[in-house]
C-alpha cells in the first residue's frame, strides 16, 4: 500500500479524486483552500479531466455542483464555514430536490477564529438540512471517508456534509492511499417532479426526506468509524462516558494516556458520522455515571445528548464549563476537562510582544490607505466601511482606517445604508475578488437609489489573503460597474503607488464631493503574486 504525507485538506482532495470525482466547485477560504488547489494541480485529476476552476462564490459553486449531480456525476463543493451562509439557499434546498450523482459538501470550520469572523459550527447546517454529516478524526479517515460519503449520497439520493476543522485541515500525517475509481457516466435525471420545487412537488420531496431519516440513523449506527472503545482501568473505579466528536477523540486519547494511577474506567464513543447514534448514547448512559461531550466548535452534540437522558443525569461539556465555552479544543483543555491539569515548569515569558499580521511592504492596499487617510481627515463625519480580505488589515495601526468589517460584500451595502441615513461621506473599501463574490448586487442597489457613496474597489488582480487564487472578475471591473449603471464619468482607475499620491487624493476628493455613486479602482498586482509570476516566467525562459 502506498503511503503519502498529506494535509487533512489534501487527504480530502485525493480521497475525492479516488472516489471518481468529476468536478470540484469552490471559493477560496481558510482553512479549506488547499483542497481545491490540490485538485487543480494533481496529475491524476488533470488526466481525468476533473473540473476545478475557482467559482465566483459559494452559492454558484453549490448550484453548479448540483447541476453536475443532476447529470449523474460526482461533485464536491468546498468552502470555509461562513461560506455555508452564502450557499445556504442552494444547500438546504438540495436536500429537498435530492441528488442524482453523489454530492459532498465540505465545510471547514475555524474554531478559535484563526482567520475568521466567527466560529459557527457547520454541523448545525447539516442537521438543519436533515442530511448525513461526516466528521473525520484524522487524515486517514478524511481520505477514506470521501468514497463512503459519495456512496452514501448516491444510495440515499441526498447530499452529504463533510465537516473538518482548522487543526485537521492544516495538519499533515501519513495516509495510505488506494486506487482511483472510475467517474460516473453522463446520466441526466428524468424525474422532473423531484427537481422542480413547486410547492406540490416540494411537499412530497420533504416527506421523502423525512422518511430517509431512519436510513440515515441506521447508516450512522452501522458506520465503520463510529467506534465504541472501553478502557477498563480498575474494577473499583466508576465508569465515565465520553462522546468524542471528530478530532476531539485524539485529545481524549492523548489526555487519558497522560493520567497516571487512574482508577476510572471509560466508555468512549468516537463520533464521526451523524445523525448521532441515539441507541449507543442511551446504552452509554446506562453504564456510565456521567457523560462528557468533547466536540470542537459549538455544543451541538451536548445539547442532543441532554435531550436523551433524565434532567438529573450529568452531561458535561462546553455548556457546563467542563470545557471552555468558546475557542478550539486542545490537549490541555481536554486534559483539564478529564481531571488532569498540565502544569508546565516554564511560566510565560515577560519579554514578549504580539506580532500581528501586516500588509506586505510595497502592497498597493497600503498606498490606497495612505491616500484615503490623508483625504478622510478633511471631512468631519467620514466613515470607511471595510470588507473581507488582506485590506481588512487597514483596520490595524498604522492606518486604523476602517469603521466596519462584517461579511463578504457588506462594505458597499453598509455604506449605502449609512448614506441613506444621512451620513456623508460614506466610503466603501472592497477587494476585486470580494466585489465579484458579493459586492455587485449591492452596487446595483446603490445605483438604483442613486445613493451618495464612494466605492473603492482595491484591485490587486487576485484573491490575495488566501494565497493568490484567480479572481473571477479579472479585467472586467470597469465593464461590470458600467453595466450595473454607474455613470462612466465616475468610474475612475488609478495606480496605487507613492508617486501617484497627488493624483489619487485629488480623484478621491472629487468623487467624495460628487453627489451619487462613484467607483474608484486602484489597480496594481499583489506583490506576492507578481513575484510568483516573475519566477514562473524565469522558469519558462530557462526551458
Amino acid at each position, binding site marked *: 500500500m502506498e503511503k503519502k504525507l498529506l494535509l487533512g485538506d489534501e487527504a480530502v482532495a485525493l480521497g475525492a479524486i479516488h472516489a471518481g470525482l468529476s468536478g470540484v466547485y469552490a471559493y477560496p477560504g481558510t482553512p479549506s483552500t488547499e483542497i481545491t488547489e490540490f485538485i487543480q494541480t494533481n496529475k491524476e485529476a488533470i488526466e481525468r479531466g476533473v473540473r476545478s476552476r475557482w467559482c465566483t462564490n459559494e452559492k454558484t459553486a453549490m448550484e453548479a455542483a448540483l447541476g453536475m449531480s443532476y447529470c449523474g456525476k460526482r461533485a464536491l463543493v468546498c468552502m470555509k464555514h461562513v461560506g455555508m451562509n452564502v450557499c445556504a439557499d442552494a444547500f438546504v434546498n438540495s436536500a429537498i430536490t435530492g441528488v442524482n450523482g453523489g454530492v459532498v459538501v465540505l465545510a471547514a470550520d475555524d474554531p478559535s477564529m484563526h482567520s475568521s469572523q466567527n466560529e459557527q459550527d457547520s454541523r448545525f447546517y447539516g442537521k438543519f438540512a436533515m442530511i448525513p454529516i461526516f466528521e473525520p478524526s484524522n487524515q486517514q479517515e478524511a481520505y477514506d471517508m470521501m468514497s463512503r460519503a459519495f456512496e452514501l449520497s448516491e444510495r440515499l439520493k441526498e447530499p452529504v456534509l463533510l465537516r473538518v476543522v482548522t487543526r485537521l485541515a492544516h495538519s499533515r500525517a501519513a495516509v495510505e492511499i488506494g486506487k482511483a475509481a472510475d467517474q460516473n457516466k453522463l446520466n441526466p435525471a428524468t424525474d422532473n417532479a423531484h427537481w422542480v420545487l413547486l410547492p406540490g412537488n416540494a411537499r412530497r420531496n420533504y416527506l421523502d426526506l423525512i422518511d430517509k431519516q431512519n436510513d440515515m440513523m441506521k447508516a450512522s449506527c452501522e458506520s465503520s468509524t463510529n467506534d465504541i472503545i472501553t478502557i477498563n482501568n480498575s474494577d473499583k473505579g466508576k465508569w465515565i462516558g465520553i462522546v468524542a466528536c471528530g478530532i476531539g477523540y485524539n485529545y481524549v486519547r492523548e489526555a487519558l494516556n497522560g493520567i497516571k494511577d487512574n482508577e476510572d474506567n471509560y466508555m468512549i464513543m468516537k463520533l464521526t458520522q451523524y445523525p448521532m447514534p441515539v441507541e449507543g448514547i442511551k446504552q452509554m448512559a446506562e453504564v456510565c455515571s456521567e457523560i462528557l461531550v468533547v466536540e470542537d466548535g459549538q455544543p451541538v452534540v451536548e445539547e442532543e445528548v441532554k435531550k436523551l437522558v433524565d434532567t438529573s443525569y450529568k452531561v458535561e461539556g462546553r455548556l457546563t464549563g467542563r470545557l471552555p465555552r468558546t475557542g478550539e479544543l486542545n490537549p490541555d483543555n481536554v486534559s483539564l476537562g478529564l481531571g488532569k491539569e498540565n502544569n508546565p515548569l516554564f511560566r510565560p*515569558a515577560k519579554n514578549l510582544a504580539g506580532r*500581528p499580521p501586516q500588509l506586505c511592504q510595497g502592497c498597493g492596499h497600503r498606498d490606497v490607505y495612505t491616500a484615503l487617510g490623508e483625504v478622510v481627515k478633511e471631512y468631519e463625519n467620514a466613515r470607511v466601511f471595510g470588507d473581507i480580505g488582506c485590506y481588512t488589515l487597514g483596520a490595524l495601526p498604522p492606518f486604523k482606517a476602517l469603521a466596519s468589517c462584517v461579511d463578504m460584500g457588506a462594505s458597499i451595502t453598509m455604506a449605502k445604508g449609512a448614506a441613506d441615513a444621512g451620513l456623508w461621506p460614506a466610503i466603501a473599501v472592497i477587494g476585486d475578488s470580494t466585489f465579484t463574490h458579493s459586492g455587485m448586487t449591492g452596487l446595483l442597489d446603490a445605483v438604483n437609489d442613486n445613493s451618495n457613496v464612494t466605492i473603492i474597489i482595491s484591485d490587486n488582480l487576485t484573491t490575495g489573503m488566501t494565497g493568490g487564487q484567480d479572481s473571477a472578475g479579472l479585467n472586467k471591473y470597469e465593464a461590470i460597474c458600467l453595466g450595473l449603471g454607474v455613470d462612466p464619468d465616475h468610474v475612475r482607475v488609478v495606480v496605487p503607488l507613492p508617486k501617484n499620491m497627488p493624483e489619487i487624493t485629488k480623484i478621491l476628493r472629487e468623487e467624495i464631493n460628487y453627489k451619487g455613486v462613484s467607483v474608484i479602482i486602484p489597480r496594481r498586482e499583489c506583490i506576492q503574486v507578481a513575484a510568483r509570476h516573475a519566477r514562473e516566467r524565469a522558469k519558462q525562459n530557462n526551458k
Partner: protein
Amino acid sequence: MKKDIILCGVGGQGILSIATIIGEAATEAGINLKQAEVHGMSQRGGDVQSNLRLSTDPIWSDQIPTGEADVIISMEPMEALRYITYLRPDGMIITSSKTFVNIPNYPDEAALKSELNELPNVQLDIEAIAAELKSAKSANMVLLGMAAPYIEVLTVEQLRKAVSVIFARKGDAVVEANLRAFDRGVEASKK
C-alpha cells in the same frame, strides 16, 4: 521513543521548509508523524509556528500539550520565548540570535536575551553564517543543522539526506548551498 518539536519564527523566514524536511526524513524512516501548521492571515509578517510530533508509537493529538515539547526550534529569539510554556523541564531551545523587529513595541533586546539565557538554549547568528556562505536564503538550513543532533529520533544523516531530496527539484546548486548551510549548523552545534 518520541520527539515533540515546536518550529517558530516570523512569516517568510522559512519555518515551513524546515517542517517539510523533517517530515520527509520521518516518512523515509517509517516514523509516525503529525505536523500542524497555521496558514492564512498569520503569514503576513506575523508570528508563525508549526507543531511537529515524531514517534515510534501512534500519535493522537496534532497539537503538543504544554510542558511536553522536547525542542523549540526558532528563527527568531522573541518567537522562541512565545512558546516556552510548551517546553519540557529537560527540553532545549535552539534559536537564531538575531532579532527581527517589525513591530513598534518590540521588547528591550538586552532584557530579552537575559531572559532567554536563563532557559536551556543554544543560540547562533544563523544569518551571519548564511551570509558568509553567500547563501542568505539558507539561514533556515543552518538552524536545522544546529537542531539536528537534538532530534535524536532521526539521525543527522537522515535529515541531511532529506535536505537534498526536498531541494532536488531546484537544481544541484541549490542542493549544495543548503547542504553547506546544514553542515555548518551541525558543526556549530558540536562546539
